[in-house]
């Protein structure tokens, strides 16, 4: 049985509540007082034994953060966030002294992972997934390290990379998303706690899907991941991030920064399945998910492909983007965003064409149910030097019920007469006759909706790595439960 199937089965057996991942683990935690200030940043840096230059970088980012206003472009109703009322660092106590092996890890934590079906144990290696698991703020365990290091691949937590590969971190951290980009980016730069670091050396094709499960566990803890992936010349890597969080009544802030760098002929495939707690039916609780993801195709013929399945969070605000600097470079964005009940999503992409013959493709599928609002917001910008650039964009929205909203906001800027930009968009309601047809074949109404919506999303889901496509399909159906009948 594939690990993902096990995950689904395990998760299905849990459900005493609607949210299938709504359990939390009792672990003693170490954390500084609430609030955001220089002292907290110094505390975080000290906890991580960071070098001086890293602390300086954080403090500078904090100064920038204080000057920047909150981004206002999204069609979202965001309650005022009190940054002083959040914890910025929490670490399960038993991890303070890093475990040497899985046996040393708090069994409560392992149990949590077991419920999520994360393949930490040796036997799970057969499923071909190397997992760098982030539990709150610290990486619990990293599998596959040996095999990967034999190829020269670095796959570790970003805190570890700061110490072991400072030259790479210094060179690339903040090089794709400048600290001053916007306030969430600056906030993350100041207080980021952990995340993944990947370096694929020249000419290496990473033989396994690299994967991280992020998990927000402690109450009122903002989680600020920082991920940096560098694919050197002629290399390839596929990375999958899956996210689940236990149920909490208060909103939790999440502001991640993910930076990708693809050098000449390199390819990075980045897939996300995001299933954080969306809040209850009345909109109480849920994660605020403000994510900045950006990839730079720096080298000739490089390629970056983003695939995302966003089904969770109370508010989703993210625009995974590609900066197509190298000639002939390619950017792709495949997205499924599902909002149900009171969820809000404002998501899309930016494709910045700089080099010659650059091309980009955007396929976005937005599904709205309940009283939710779902916005696609995208920018295709073709600069004057990007001769012969190409873009194709397709945005489809599906509405379930009559109280939800779908919005499409494409921005297209072209400073170049050789370029070609195509945009297609559709909005439709779920077809009653299709539902009836499926039900007449024995599917109950929820299965029928799941089937039709999965069909609607197929173009995107088929870009996910095989192991996760099944789980994603299941999630699509789960997240729409209660949307009909």
């Amino acid at each position: 049985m594939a690990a993902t199937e096990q995950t689904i089965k395990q998760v299905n057996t849990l459900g005493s509540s609607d949210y299938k991942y709504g359990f939390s683990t009792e672990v003693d935690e170490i954390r500084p007082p609430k609030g955001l200030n220089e002292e907290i940043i110094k505390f975080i840096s000290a906890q991580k034994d960071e070098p001086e230059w890293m602390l300086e970088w954080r403090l500078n980012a904090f100064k920038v953060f204080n000057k920047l206003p909150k981004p206002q472009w999204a069609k979202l109703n965001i309650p005022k966030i009190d940054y002083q009322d959040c914890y910025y660092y929490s670490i399960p106590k038993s991890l303070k002294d890093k475990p040497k092996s899985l046996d040393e890890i708090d069994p409560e934590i392992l149990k949590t992972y077991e419920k999520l079906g994360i393949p930490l144990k040796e036997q799970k290696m057969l499923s071909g997934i190397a997992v760098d698991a982030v539990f709150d703020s610290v990486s619990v365990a990293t599998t596959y390290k040996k095999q990967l290091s034999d190829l020269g691949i670095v796959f570790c937590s970003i805190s570890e990379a700061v110490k072991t590969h400072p030259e790479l971190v210094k060179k690339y951290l903040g090089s794709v998303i400048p600290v001053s980009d916007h306030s969430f980016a600056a906030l993350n730069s100041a207080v980021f706690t952990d995340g993944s670091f990947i370096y694929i050396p020249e000419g290496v094709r990473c033989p396994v899907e690299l994967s991280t499960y992020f998990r927000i566990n402690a109450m009122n803890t903002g989680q600020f991941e920082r991920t940096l992936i560098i694919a050197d010349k002629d290399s390839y890597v596929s990375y999958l991030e899956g996210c689940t969080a236990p149920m909490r009544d208060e909103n939790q802030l999440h502001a991640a920064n993910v930076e990708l760098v693809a050098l000449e002929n390199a390819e990075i495939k980045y897939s996300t399945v995001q299933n954080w707690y969306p809040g209850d039916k009345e909109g109480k609780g849920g994660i605020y998910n403000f994510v900045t993801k950006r990839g730079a195709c720096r080298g000739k013929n490089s390629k970056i492909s983003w695939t995302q399945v966003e089904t969770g969070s109370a508010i989703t605000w993210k625009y995974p983007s590609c900066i197509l600097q190298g000639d002939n470079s390619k950017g792709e964005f495949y997205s499924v965003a599902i909002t149900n009940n009171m969820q809000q999503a404002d998501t899309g992409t930016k494709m910045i064409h700089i080099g010659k013959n650059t091309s980009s493709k955007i396929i976005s599928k937005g599904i709205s149910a309940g009283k939710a609002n779902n916005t696609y917001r995208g920018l295709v910008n073709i600069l004057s030097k990007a001769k012969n650039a190409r873009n194709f964009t397709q945005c489809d929205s599906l509405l379930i019920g009559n109280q939800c909203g779908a919005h499409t906001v494409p921005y297209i800027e072209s400073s170049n007469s050789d370029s070609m930009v195509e945009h297609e968009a559709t909005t439709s309601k779920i077809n009653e006759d299709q539902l009836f047809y499926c039900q007449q074949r024995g599917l109950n109404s929820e299965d029928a909706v799941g089937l039709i919506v999965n069909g609607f999303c197929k173009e995107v889901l088929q870009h996910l790595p095989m192991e996760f496509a099944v789980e994603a399909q299941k999630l699509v159906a789960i997240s729409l439960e209660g949307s009909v009948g």
Partner: protein
Amino acid sequence: MLEIKNLHVSIEEKKIIKGLDLSINKGEVHALMGPNGSGKSTLSYVLSGKDKYEINDGTIDYNGKNLLELDVDERANEGLFLAFQYPMEIPGVQTSFFLKTAINSKRKYLGQSEMDALEFAKLMKSKAEELNISTEMLKRDLNVNYSGGEKKKQEILQMSMLSPKMAILDETDSGLDIDALRIVSEGVNKLRNSDNSFLVITHYQRLLNYIKPDFVHIIADGKIVKSGDYSLALELEEKGYEEISQTA
């Protein structure tokens, strides 16, 4: 099997079925013939449970159960099958996956375990071959870019895989050329046995050359106006609806 008594149905205040009685026993094939607008398709939708139809009066008993109290999927899983006049396209859903989902929904309803993948593949292959449906077609999205005839064959494939107790064929012959008509009819005839029943709705006697009914009913203005055996269909072909309805 199916016992319809004094059925009155309206849609948006408009009366469509006005006191219809029909009784179908196990092992019987009934043909329901009538002109456009006589209520044939409405009856098929009411039996399968489509909403927006208001039942103003009457009862429908299905194997001892009150059919009108069952949900659409419950009726289906209790063995009631409707071969649609206009089968729906479902983009992005592979035909074979749809078939598997349908079969497993029924098995789940009946408290059985999911069908083994190999067993399913074998069943699908043999049934598809009987209907001259290519493997290639089963890999395509359900009904998307199918021709009219291909869609109808697909309906019969679904029917034969689900092996219903009570199958309703709503103008399955419309849009079929003579070869497809023969194949589809053979598919239906293979399924016929002493335990199941068919209600074949059609405009034309042509289909009944292939699927020989035990009874023929003529519906006009929401009521069955005349019933008989197969010879009634031949008489109808000769005289036309108007004359038959008047003499009834």
